[in-house]
């Protein structure tokens, strides 16, 4: 991989490849309520250094990277839990402002963190958890082969798009309503031909 990309780009890519390109190719960023709430929630996580939870050591804001995936990022929380052979196994925990998603976006992001931990520490990371702000509960995520494959495939597609500096065309969808970049993307524009627009104005 030529360049390390942020792990968060995986989630952007799965949400909408165009949104991902606007952020990571075109360097556009617009805040809305959701992005600000997410940032405030993370600031709270970032403000602490380390602690203990249910007998496990917790490290917060842990820098991560994987050469294989070509990704880097920061895990909100990594807990060290005792494994079967007595060695401690890292257990990544990600904080999300909303409610659990039906699709795999958040699980992919967490699994990418686990792959980073595996590569950096040379061990096997079987599971982690996502803490959701809405129901205020932890969802356990098992890093199975299917999820790991999805992470690798998404990372490859992401790298390809960024390397080509390509911004895919807009696709109008329900999710555009929650997207802070809708104003930049203009998804409703469709394929109105500019030439016929020009000609009809000239004829009036």
């Amino acid at each position, binding site marked *: 991989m030529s360049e390390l990309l942020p792990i968060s780009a995986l989630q952007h890519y799965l949400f909408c490849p165009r949104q991902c390109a606007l952020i990571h*190719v*075109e*360097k*556009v960023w617009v805040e809305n309520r959701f992005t600000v709430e997410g940032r405030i929630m993370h600031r709270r996580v970032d403000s602490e250094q380390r602690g203990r939870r249910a007998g496990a050591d917790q490290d917060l804001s842990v820098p991560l990277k994987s050469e294989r995936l070509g990704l880097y990022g920061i895990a909100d929380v990594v807990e060290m839990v005792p494994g079967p052979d007595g060695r401690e196994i890292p257990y990544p925990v990600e904080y999300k402002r909303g409610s659990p998603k039906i699709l795999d976006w958040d699980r992919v992001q967490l699994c990418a963190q686990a792959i980073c931990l595996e590569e950096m520490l040379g061990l096997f990371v079987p599971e982690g958890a996502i803490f959701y702000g809405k129901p205020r509960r932890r969802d356990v995520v098992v890093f199975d082969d299917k999820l790991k494959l999805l992470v690798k495939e998404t990372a490859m597609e992401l790298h390809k798009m960024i390397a080509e*500096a390509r*911004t895919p*065309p*807009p696709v109008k969808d329900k999710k555009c309503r929650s997207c802070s970049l*809708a*104003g*930049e993307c*203009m998804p*409703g*524009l469709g394929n*109105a*031909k*500019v*030439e016929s*627009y*020009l*000609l009809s*104005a*000239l*004829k*009036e």
Partner: protein
Amino acid sequence: MKKLLNTLYVTTQGSYLSKDGECIVVRSEDGSKKKFPVHVLDGVVCFGNVLCSPFLLGHCADSGLAVSFLTENGRFLAEVKGPQSGNVLLRREQYRRADDPVQTSAMARSFLIGKTVNSRTVLRRGLRDHGDRIDSGRLEKAALELDSYAKRLSSPLVLEEARGLEGRAANVYFNVFDELILKNDGEFTFTGRNRRPPLDKVNCLLSFVYTLLAHDVRSALEAAGLDPQVGFLHRDRPGRPGLALDVMEEFRSFMADRIVLTLINRGEVSSKGFSVKESGAVLMNDDTRRTVLQAWQKRKSDIVLHPYIKEKIPLGIAFHVQAKLLARCLRNDLDGYPPFFWK
């Protein structure tokens, strides 16, 4: 879409702007103080001797707020902004197109169509609204001449032809512009466009409003990641914002010119609000400047239907929409640049 925020225009000489938390504090020489939260602003424009603290400038740069310094008469001096942002690939594509004669002509044609169609609409509006009070024959003839340019613009044209057409369309329009000044008591006479310095009150008003338009268009282009200097219809000339001038063409008549006409025709500016220098240069006084700035801000809040994106937007946002459409055209999301047509 970007909300229509407000530009803070500081015209009181000797004012000092500083940062207080998330606010801009404007102190006048007489000691009076006013506070404006940064998040409700999208720009600060300082006229004449207005000072800003470096911390305020830094804060504005961080928040994406352009701070510009103009002379008292509205001539652009400098702008303070943060590190270059936006997409370098987009700017490169802008340069490549500007180097390609075919692509440049296509872009120039779009800007010219915007200019011609909107100028024609302003003349037709004048005919419709005041046909009984003016020499409608002159206006009709000019509108018909613009029709013939419109016909010529229906098919592609080479760049030199586009630039020639631009000058002729402007001439036709300004030749009859005086017909649209209804309050003809000899105070506001217009015999053609002149500038640097303007030699009559109408030109003085026009120049000032064009400065405001240029400022807003330029900020919108920069916010969309484009280089305001590299234009298509307007040739590169060091220091000249060619692309901003290109995009201004479609806005001049219905944004700038009509504000000037309205201010004169409704008697909101009077000849007492101007002074004449020894050289014949005409300057406006503080009150007139304030009146024009208020009219400009008010015009920007007018809601219009954008004929291409088919969304209702405040006119002030139209600059940003056009900048984004231009960026999308350069990225090949669109098959051309769709100018804003005033209906």
